[in-house]
């Protein structure tokens, strides 16, 4: 039954790791703004691209929804 010492140690170590992660997250300011990230993650990556691929995108509209806008340029 002395295995219980091992188990207890493991469980506490795991708990402390999560606790430290929480503290680090708070310290980095992740809890300061709980709204913006929820919007940010919905932005589509394909539109955040560097200007070098700009021309390509104009020629080849990839999605129906975007087509109108792109052609109008």
């Amino acid at each position, binding site marked *: 039954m002395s295995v219980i010492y091992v188990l*207890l140690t493991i469980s*506490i170590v795991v708990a402390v790791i999560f*606790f430290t992660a929480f503290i680090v997250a708070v310290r980095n300011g992740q809890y300061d703004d*709980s709204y913006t990230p929820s919007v940010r993650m919905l*932005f589509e990556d394909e539109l955040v691209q*560097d200007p070098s691929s*700009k021309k390509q*995108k104009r020629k080849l509209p990839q999605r129906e929804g975007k087509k109108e806008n792109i052609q109008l340029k």
Partner: protein
Amino acid sequence: MEVYNCYHCGDDCGAAPIEVDEKPFCCNGCRMVYEIFAENDLSYYYDLQSAAGTTPNLIEGKYDFLETPKIIERLTEFNDGDLQIVNLYVPHIHCSSCIWVLENLNKLNPAVSGSQVDFPKKMVRITYHSEELSLKQLVVLLARIGYEPYISLDDFDNKKKAVDRSLIYKLGVAGFAFGNVMFLSFPDYFDLSTNEVSGGEFWLNEYEAVFRWLMFTFSLPVVFYAGRDYFISAYKGLRSRLLNIDVPIALGILVLFLRSTLEIIFNWGSGFFDSLTGLVFFLLLGKFFQQKTYSFLSFERDYKSYFPIAITRITSNGKEESVQVHDIKKGDRLLIRNEELIPVDGILLKGNARIDYSFVTGESEPVRKVSGDTLFAGGKQLQGAMEMEALKSVSQSYLTQLWSNTVFQRDRSSKFQTITDGIGKRFTVGVLSIALVATCFWLFADASKAMNVFTAVLIIACPCAIALAAPFTLGNMLRIFGRRKFYLKDTLTIEQLAQVDTAIFDKTGTITTAKKSTATYEGMPLTPEEESLLKNTLRASNHPLSRSLYEILSEQNISTLDEYEEHLGRGIEGSIGENHIKAGSADFVGKQTTTDGLNTTVHISSNDDYKGRYIFHNQYREGVSEVFREMSYQLSLAILSGDNEGEKKRLERLLPKLTPLYFNQKPAGKLAFIESLQQQGKKVLMVGDGLNDAGALAQAEVGVAISENVNVFSPACDAILDASKFQQLYRYILASKKAMKIIKFSFILSLLYNVVGLYFAVTGQLQPVIAAILMPLSSISVVAFTTVATNLLANKLN
């Protein structure tokens, strides 16, 4: 006719929209922003939200002060010569499009290496290379795309305050310990009150000590870190001879900890570590819930938050230079550009001034000044550039002096006894006497149990549920009010609002709207031709009175004037063929004797014959009469206006009879008026809007600022009410009274739990498991009750 709305900002484009890419735009500014976005592949902006933008409104030279190294140093968060980081407040941030475009700034200018938006605070944090893009250029870039940052003296004076996250840390520590202690208590829960002697489970007894000492270790940071504030608050309370609610809480925590520690040292039992950590966790949760603040609003604003950082000074050799407003000295010559704020009292030297004092007085109509007139700080120049000479320094000016009054330094919260603290006193006395009586009884009946009973009473009576009732009820009310556009500074404000018995209102801007859109005509009626000519003449003028009169007059055919002339400060004239019309001040149209009195009037003459005059009236907010009538049954009311008595008769008709009306009140006078009411024992609610009310708002028990646009400006206050919800004000007061009733009911509920718990404690049967069940149960049911009750209350508010 088809109506075009601007593709960029959504405004009506009028008859002739500017078309680019088959999209209508209301002005060249909007078109330019669209083109900037389209060129840089940022037109996704419009896919996120249609008409998300705002018309850019850029004034040349406005940001010249951002070239001064000292100012750059103060504004930037990080500055190593090239790389700079700046936090800017952009009031226009309002939708996801805004976040997107501001976070893609680097595509508009590669010198920006990163930008991050904090939506609730409406802040954007931008990292950029200042060698390629200076701070001024960055700000101009933002202004050009319609996201003009708001930079005020406040940004200059206050270095960024460190965010206080200690409550989250404490909550984290308490939650972490609570969870772990609960797990470690399981063996004890299953092996109720048995030990080696009475033949308990062997393995459980074998490792009992390990589990117990682990629990002890976990509870240490809870007591000494997370629960620290309760000890401090209780100590402070006792020192000022106040029995606040933190006294029994601190006592409970202390007794829980000491008794549990003794129990495990002498192996009497398992201790109450689960209850202890749970108690602190729930209490902190209540605090956290109460802490909800509206980070995008500021309740602490003084004149600094809308004074500019720097202003242009004209040196003796005629050169222009940026000067920090604190450095303005008496005798300096200052250049005030269009739309700039006058930072100090002074004398107008050159140029025509039309000053908008709406920040100061709430009065929306600009005042015309000519060379030699005195100008007061806080006014905004609306017409071209002017030169003035400073008569005082910033802190000595008429308006800013108000802030040296002690009322702005006073800490309101220390004086007010909350409902929880009120009951805390009686509760502490009650619990201590029960504990003593029970201990005395057991000293005679069974002395060995006496100490046990004494501590048990203090443990079980720890007023967790009572301490939670107010934070959860009021915290929830804060959110409910917030959704209904009534933003309160803190929960204390609700308690004070519920006690209010006197309501004082400012007039201009508070019970009137900012627009002046009603006018009555007196005199000889105008013929249709004259009216048409008048309307066409007004059409050409940009003066605000012309604009409002133009809106009021009935629709006429548009015809071209043969002649039109505007006489600054006097009036306008126009003619078609033989007919000619004049509109303006009395002497301008040729009327000698004037009976204008105190109202704003526009006189009309046709072909040099005097016709009559239009008298403008303040437009009162919708439902002002009803709000006042409802309130007058419960509260004593008064109007405290900085204006003249011109509107007295109309007000008397609008408001309930015998409502006291005070006119010509100076800011300091308003403050003194509130003070004298308070000396008579009244609890005063002050409703105002301008900076001239700031003193009264701070002095009153509750100061409510009415704001047409909550993002823009409001003086320091306890609550901000959106102008559209003015009619609801009284219902909000009633709702806060009901919220206090809910709290009282929750007190009764939690006292019932305490009675049950005390039964176990007094009879000496308190098991740790009973405490562990009773404590969360009472807390959760109180929280559930208050949440349900406040939500029911919220439904009634609709």
